[in-house]
């Protein structure tokens, strides 16, 4: 069980900046994110894209922004539960929230900040009849344990980096890999494309293009797939079918938490970005209110105001005042201290 002052759901830019603002108020944070790395959309969808509307940065790459936010909040020692999706929330009689992930990790805190962006990123599933029946019975959208594919017959569908990279990896552990893609061209790094070509020339990967999987067969588990190429259908015996068509965000379980939802986003009060459930806040792209703009810079502002109310919930009745970091510096939870060098004052006419 993980205890903190604030559970932040979503480790994107706004979640990371919440750690910093909370840290200034001596509040400890723990972040939960369905993705395996922090940064949210900035690291998952467009790490190499420049952003032009971050104040004081005429231009910054989304991946670089993530790194700088991680560096900025590092001294406040945030905890991370990555690769897990926040699934359930409960509030006990003492006002403590318990957030449990899909893998059963339990987190407790007095305040929950949902900074989930567009929701949790989930695999895009091909529209095939009965595909849900075969999930975990031969159909996997995410490769968790590559060892289970050793010496097995695998069909991977997709044309991006993950389809290429996993084809290479699995071919190298002696899986019998067939890569199926709708186009002849692949959308991956040159290095990956060349490696796949080499493996194909060595007969270690079978590539079928332009083609697609149109049907899945099997009694109790997946036994074969039907591949359509040039309108000709062929059956291929397989142990596993791994469609890798990228990720798309879904609001997911959060939509069942009793929160007021409007336009696929969580309604908040603009006083402090609190939701209809006291103690649960929503900041960044996941919230909505009159005049809402889905911009990173607006999320930073929302996170800052939110932390003021979070402080009052966590420390009822305890006074605090707004501090300027230029004046008081920053005391990290790791014992570090940042402060401006003291100026030297000397009289000229002595």
């Amino acid at each position, binding site marked *: 069980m993980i205890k903190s002052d604030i559970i932040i759901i979503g480790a994107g830019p706004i979640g990371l900046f919440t750690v910093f603002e909370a840290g200034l108020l001596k509040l400890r944070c723990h972040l939960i994110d369905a993705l395996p790395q922090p940064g949210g959309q900035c690291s998952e969808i467009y790490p190499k894209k420049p952003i032009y509307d971050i104040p004081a940065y005429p231009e910054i790459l989304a991946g670089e922004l993530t790194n700088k936010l991680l560096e900025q909040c590092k001294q406040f020692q945030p905890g991370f539960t990555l690769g897990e999706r926040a699934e359930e929330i409960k509030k006990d009689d003492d006002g403590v929230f318990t957030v449990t992930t899909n893998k059963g990790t339990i987190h407790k805190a007095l305040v929950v900040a949902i900074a989930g962006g567009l929701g949790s990123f989930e695999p895009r599933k091909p529209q095939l009849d009965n595909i849900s029946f075969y999930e975990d019975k031969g159909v996997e959208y995410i490769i968790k344990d590559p060892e289970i594919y050793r010496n097995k017959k695998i069909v991977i569908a997709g044309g991006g980096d993950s389809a290429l990279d996993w084809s290479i990896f699995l071919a190298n552990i002696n899986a019998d890999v067939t890569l199926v893609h709708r*186009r002849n061209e692949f959308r991956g790094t040159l290095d990956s494309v060349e490696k796949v070509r080499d493996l194909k020339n060595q007969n270690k990967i079978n590539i079928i293009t332009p083609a697609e999987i149109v049907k899945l067969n099997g009694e109790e588990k997946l036994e074969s797939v039907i591949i359509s190429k040039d309108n000709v259908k062929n059956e291929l015996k397989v142990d596993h079918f791994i469609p890798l068509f990228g990720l*798309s965000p879904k609001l997911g379980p959060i939509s069942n938490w009793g929160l007021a939802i409007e*336009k696929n986003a969580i309604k908040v009060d603009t006083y402090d970005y609190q939701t209809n459930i006291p103690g649960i806040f929503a900041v960044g792209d996941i919230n909505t209110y009159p005049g809402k703009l889905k911009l990173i810079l607006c999320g930073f502002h929302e996170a800052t105001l939110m932390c003021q109310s979070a402080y009052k919930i966590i420390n009822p009745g305890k006074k605090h005042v707004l501090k300027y970091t230029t004046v008081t510096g920053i005391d990290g939870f790791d014992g570090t201290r940042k402060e401006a060098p003291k100026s030297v004052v000397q009289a000229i006419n002595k």
Partner: protein
Amino acid sequence: MSDVKIKITDRQGKLHNVVAPIDMAMNVMEVIRSYELAPEGPIGVCGGMAMCASCQCYITSTHELPIMGDEEEAMLSEAFNVTEKSRLGCQISITKNLEGLEITIAPEE
């Protein structure tokens, strides 16, 4: 004249006649969002970078459109419900020659 008229059929099959400005650097996905013809979450997820297929549309009129770029073509090759008429709305800028454009928003994935 700084507007064009566009016919958009939403995901429920309802036809909307909308007016889109040509001088605000808008694209078809943004026009759909600005008129709230599809909820913001399920359309324009990536913000217009051709990095998702949430704004896929079927172009049902015969207008000459901007040539499909590599990123758009690659994304549509992985999208679902793709037909010969499929384009990503975010990659079609609103220009005066789109007067009378007719589009249908593709189903949500």
